[in-house]
């Protein structure tokens, strides 16, 4: 798998827009321990971490809004 295709697969996978056909490619890559899996795992870990951090920040902002309404 070339790097452009791999990146496209990873992006589609992370954004939840991956097609059934490409998902089958990823499953195959997982079974074959394709190097793209290491890239995917790192990408997933990075993006999930950023999302979790962002949600924590947002939650704190919204919690302030919740309590501000009581003042």
């Amino acid at each position, binding site marked *: 798998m070339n790097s452009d295709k791999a990146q496209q697969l990873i992006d589609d996978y992370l954004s939840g827009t991956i097609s059934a056909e490409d998902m089958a490619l990823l499953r195959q890559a997982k079974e074959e321990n394709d190097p793209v899996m290491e890239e995917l795992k790192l990408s*997933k870990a990075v993006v*999930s971490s*950023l999302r979790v951090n962002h949600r924590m920040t947002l939650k704190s902002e919204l919690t302030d809004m919740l309590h501000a309404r009581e003042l």
Partner: protein
Amino acid sequence: MEEKNLAYIKSELLKGNNKCLEVIFKDEADFCVKNLSNTTSCSYEDAEDIFVESVLNLREKIIAGKITYLNSVRNYLYTTCKNMWSERVRKLAGTQKKWSSIQAYLHDEYKDDPIVQKEDLQETETMLKIANEALSKMNSKCQDIIYYFYVEGHSMTDIVELMDLSNSEVAKVLKYRCFKKLKNLVREFQKAGR
């Protein structure tokens, strides 16, 4: 909530203005929090926490374009709150330990993932710190596109407009380069044992 109001909220959220959600807290928080705590075993504090989570959930769906019209914001939020409470009760069954928001969010990120499971990643909690640190080392354009695409889930069309780029191809190339750079920085930080 009328379509035009949701469209206004979406346009403000895309600009990063979360203040537009204040009206939802003013109009709907008391109803949802009081009813949830009065009709279930949920404490008032937990009900407040769940209500905030339900607004976060609504915010994400508005941004992603999954919700463009709601007959009643109150009904939507209250139903979401009840479902979230049921899920919490189910998750906590059999364990005395209360999940932190971070653990719950990480769980959500990996549940139903058919390819990568949380167990595959030893360093998820450490990654929370590293990923943010690496992102902060990048230029603002890279930070923006990564935030818009990977974190907020904006469409390429929205990103082109928000970042004033010439077209979606330019946006794709920028995203590709920035994300690659971010991963390389993360690898460097991991090697340095941060």
